[in-house]
């Protein structure tokens, strides 16, 4: 098989206060896959995400992105390859206008002038926010800000898009619009979420992280219908939702 876009091997990490969050995590994501990362609160999902672009440095084990190890000398390139969309768009959008915010990443990569402008507008087009380029981010609705946050990362043309709780705090219409956008993108996706129906809708494959261990790595359908596994790791389907009753699943 080809070189995986994301190759995590034996990753372990303890926070400076001694709390160990990850105990030897293995994870491979290949080109074009959409993978859901599931797990209860405190399972270490966010800690894992912060290793993928080198914000945290592995205590043991390794992370490679398309073969390039996450290490200090590669950080700039790693951060271009791995686009992380954080949960709160107010943390992600810090410039005076939508355009400046989307331009922030590519400008740090050295893009200028017309090439930069084109990159920005392409990214905004992908999320349907091109008409809002001149607006200040805090004047947008929450759903619009979430979409701009996705565009800020798409503008760096990442090889893998990492979404932290993409559907949180969205109304059902914005949630569906975001799903349409994610489906339309030609990019590898790793989606951290508690929203199990959303994971089933968008990601054919799911990885379950619990107490810093990977406890399941299977098709999302099989994970969500494995009642013993779900119960053992504090995963619960919302009321009235049964994957067995859905006849059109993403492949």
């Amino acid at each position, binding site marked *: 098989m080809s070189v995986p876009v994301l190759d995590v091997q034996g990753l372990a990490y303890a926070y400076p206060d001694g709390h160990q969050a990850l105990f030897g995590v293995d994870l491979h994501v290949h080109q074009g896959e959409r993978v859901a990362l599931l797990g209860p609160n405190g399972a270490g999902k966010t800690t894992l995400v912060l290793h993928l672009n080198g914000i945290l440095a592995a205590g043991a084990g390794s992370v490679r992105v398309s073969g390039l190890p996450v290490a200090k000398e590669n950080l700039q390139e790693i*951060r271009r390859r791995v686009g992380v969309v954080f949960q709160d768009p107010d943390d992600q959008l*810090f410039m*005076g206008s939508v355009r400046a915010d989307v*331009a*922030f*990443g590519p400008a*740090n990569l050295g893009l200028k002038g017309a090439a930069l402008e084109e990159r920005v507008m392409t990214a905004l087009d992908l999320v349907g926010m091109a008409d809002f380029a001149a607006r200040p981010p805090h004047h947008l609705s929450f759903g619009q800000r979430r979409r701009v946050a996705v565009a*800020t990362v798409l503008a760096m043309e990442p090889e893998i898009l990492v979404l932290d709780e993409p559907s949180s705090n969205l109304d059902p219409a914005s949630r569906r619009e975001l799903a349409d956008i994610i489906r339309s993108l030609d990019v590898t996706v790793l989606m951290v979420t508690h929203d199990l129906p959303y994971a089933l809708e968008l990601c054919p494959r799911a990885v379950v992280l619990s107490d810093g261990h990977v406890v399941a790595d299977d098709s999302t359908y099989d994970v969500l219908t494995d009642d013993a596994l779900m119960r053992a790791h504090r995963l619960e389907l919302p009321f009235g939702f049964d994957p067995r009753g859905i006849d059109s699943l993403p492949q």
Partner: protein
Amino acid sequence: MGAGHGHRLHFHGHSPVHRAPAHLKVLLLVGFMLTVVATPRDWFPVFGVYVLVVVAVITAARVPLLYIVRRMVIEVPFLVFAALIPFIATGPQVEVLGVSVSEPGLLAAWGLAVKGSLGVMASLTLAATTEPADVLVGLRRLRMPDLIVQIMGFMIRYLDVVTSDLGRMMVSMRSRGMDPRSPRSWPTLARTLGSLFIRSYERGERVHLAMLSRGYTGELPK
């Protein structure tokens, strides 16, 4: 939440004052303030001229005078302090409306009040005619250190976020029966400010993470 309200000081318009380059306006404002402060306070007619100049600029900008005056309420605590000076200062006493007050104190109060008000009025005029982002561009053009301009930019961006954080905390406290006006709840209010500080600090850390994740190396793109 956080959506829909603009900067409360800016008055949208297309007058020559609005269109003038921001760095020029900042320079003029600073020059004007220095002149006002340097003017001896007993040159009474000169202050009349200053007021006329500011009013002329406001008129040229087609900003309603009342818009500026209403926002000058911010200097009221300062004026109260100025009003106290004649009563606590020493020196020869004069009778004003049957009350005996200190003469040098009266002059000091006048100086403080008129210079302060002129400064506030002129600054509000700049704020009303220039978008905050343009002021930053102007400051950068005036060679203000980049780090300070960046910090000011973040302040403008997150002012609304932090005020709405505080607003939500106040609503939740009121919903649980706190009366923010009663002195008994002041200790709680103080702790609230403490936790608002922690929240903002943590948000700062998260913003920094998000910046690093997009390749920030210490310089914002121009």
